């Protein structure tokens, strides 16, 4: 299994100040928990101050739910080799993320992303992608 450890985006996700809009990661997401999301990518919004990946994930009843996974800004992603062409609609991806603090909300903060088709992987600082 390919293991990737990326450190290039430390400034963005660890400190969380450079790409701040109004909200903080720590206030929005529960940094003590993780959620695993597996599904098809339906939208990739590559933008500042934060990018977003939308994926469609089946919930425990089998109903597809649209998740918004918050990612870094374009500068930070660019520095780690991610550009707007990196991900395509329809990609099968596995995402590990921090869930929202609000119960029942379909949003998460990106920790790791892996594409099944070619093994492309991205991880936030200190995160291993399995």
């Amino acid at each position: 299994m390919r293991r990737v450890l990326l450190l290039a985006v430390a400034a963005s996700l660890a400190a969380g100040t450079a790409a701040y809009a109004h909200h903080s990661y720590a206030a929005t997401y529960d940094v003590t928990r993780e959620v695993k999301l597996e599904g098809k990518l339906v939208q990739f919004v590559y933008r500042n101050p934060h990018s977003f990946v939308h994926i469609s994930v089946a919930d425990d009843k089998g109903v597809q739910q649209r998740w918004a996974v918050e990612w870094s800004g374009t500068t930070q992603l660019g520095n780690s080799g991610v550009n707007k062409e990196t991900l395509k609609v329809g990609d099968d991806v596995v995402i590990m993320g921090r869930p929202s603090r609000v119960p029942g909300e379909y949003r998460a903060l990106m920790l790791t992303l892996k594409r099944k088709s070619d093994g492309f992987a991205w991880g936030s600082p200190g995160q291993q992608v399995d």
Partner: protein
Amino acid sequence: MHKRLAALAATTFAAAAIAAIVAPLSAQPPRPANPTDIAGEWTLTNNEEDTTAQPPLGDYLGIPFNAAGRQRADTTAESIWGTPEYQCRPHSAPHQWRGLGGARILKEQDPLTRDVRAYHVQFMRSLDWPIFMDGRPHPPAWAPHSWTGFSTGQWIGNTLKVTTTHLKDGYLKRGGPQTSDMYSMTDYITRHDEILTIVTVVDDPVYQDEPYVESTTYTIDLTSNVAMETCNGSSFAENGGTDRHHVPHFLPGQNTALTEWLKKDDWIPVEPTRGGANTIYPEYKSGATKFPASRSAVSAEKDIQAQSPRDGQVHVLPVQGNIYMIVADGTNITVSMGADGVMLVNSGSAAMSEKVLAAVNQLASSAVTPPAPNTCFGAACPSAWGWASPYMNAVISSPAPPKPIRYIINTSAASEHVGGNEKLATAGFFPRGGGFGSAVSSVGREASIVAHENVLNRLSTPAGPGAKPAPAAAQPTDTYFDEFHKLPEYFNGEAVILYGAPRANTDGDSLVFFRHSEVISAGNIFSTISYPAIDLEKGGGIQGVIDGLNRILDLAVAEYRGQGGTWIIPGRGRLSDTADVASYRNMVTIIRDRVKDLAGKGLTLQQVKAARPTMDFDGRYASAAAGTWTADSFVEAVYRSLQEKK
């Protein structure tokens, strides 16, 4: 000193500092001949507590919260910034001095005298913030609020005192502590050589027991350039899911993150972290039980009442395009004025008809047929009629009469909105019937009254013993029963569309959209002075109100940074925009969710009322201005309409 204690000390110091500044006010020194120049590029100096960053969730140290402010902060979810209406907002005014990116202060001069007419302050995440120095008054209470508010400046010695009103609701600090839209802000800006000290006083009578005071320091920076962060937000909800109307919030007691930070800073007792006026005084630490009082200088109740004054008078506020807002004894009437004549959305109370008609006629005369000097005379402008110079005709003619009232649209059958129908419709004219108009004298002599058909039903056949129908001339002449109703042709050069709001305040509510002027007249679905008055007996319901508010948000588009653009005229209260409607929608949704949660746990109506699910909004929407529609009335309506749904 540890940072937390430093925070308390800093606040205390700031309070003392502001007292020192305010003290000389009783004998204000004259305006200095050459006040210190505060213009330039300034860099934020990170030497105050919480500068640029934000306190952890649940850290309210130094904030003089009242119970409502504390609950509002506890139940606020940071995810709200993912909703479409929030993504492009700038920092709230109290945080701007603390935001990243520095500050630029520009001077706007009078070209003749070179007096400073206004300062303009800009931050990375702000709109331009003008501070008027020319002595102009603050706008009336029914004028809209904005992110920067309306500011006037006055030199007090070497200090510029900036008084800001008309601010939107927002956050005192990021991550929880909120402000209402009834706060005022006073900045004291003092320059000492290359240092700029700003002492900010935030006075929010809805959420604070005392004004909140903080200081911020900047240094001059000859090489900095305050960047402009554009908004790249989009209309999709960043919170995921498929509900663009999702309102993130925590139910009371549900937010478990409030004490997370104390696991690390476990030497801090919990009580002062919850804020409160007592906790900001040095005596608190020594166990004192009596503290000096410094109450808010602002009366929320008085200011809310002023948005909708029951003064027996008519006030006119130009809005946008063809549209004006008339505040008639506290009830809003929307007026479209133009070449086709006058359209009113709602007619006010019967008692105000004469004054409303006078105001509309005066407006029609000045807006549509303004007196103008003749510009066509002599050989360059031959008369088409051949018998007189147009010059002569213009001089000897009196102005054309004002255009007539052609339409009255009723957003509901509420008496304060249909009371003037008879008088105003009779004074109007609608060319109904074309060439047959002269055959029947009553046809075409009144303005057309348009409404949902349930308004007609209610006015023509009112329920209840002894209830009498409204006079025929007061009843709608054109009704609709569908999802929406388009006027068949442009009026004053634009489309006018009525959207039905089923089961909202009643079963006959409409929103009226002026599609070119970008104005929505919301009727009673939206009020800035009270909770929505839901009449269950007349077919109203909580979900219909929420759906109606969401319909407004779907139609409306902000101009820039989440404000302006489409203007929304409430049934009562100040002129508003998408941000204001979003805040109101959020409040209504949050209370709906709380009541639903309590009812779901088996609580009776009385128990739900006792739990006070509206507590953090009562200071804003259950003041005396709301009249007989109390918090309990609203909770009961929500509770019962949720029961009906089952």
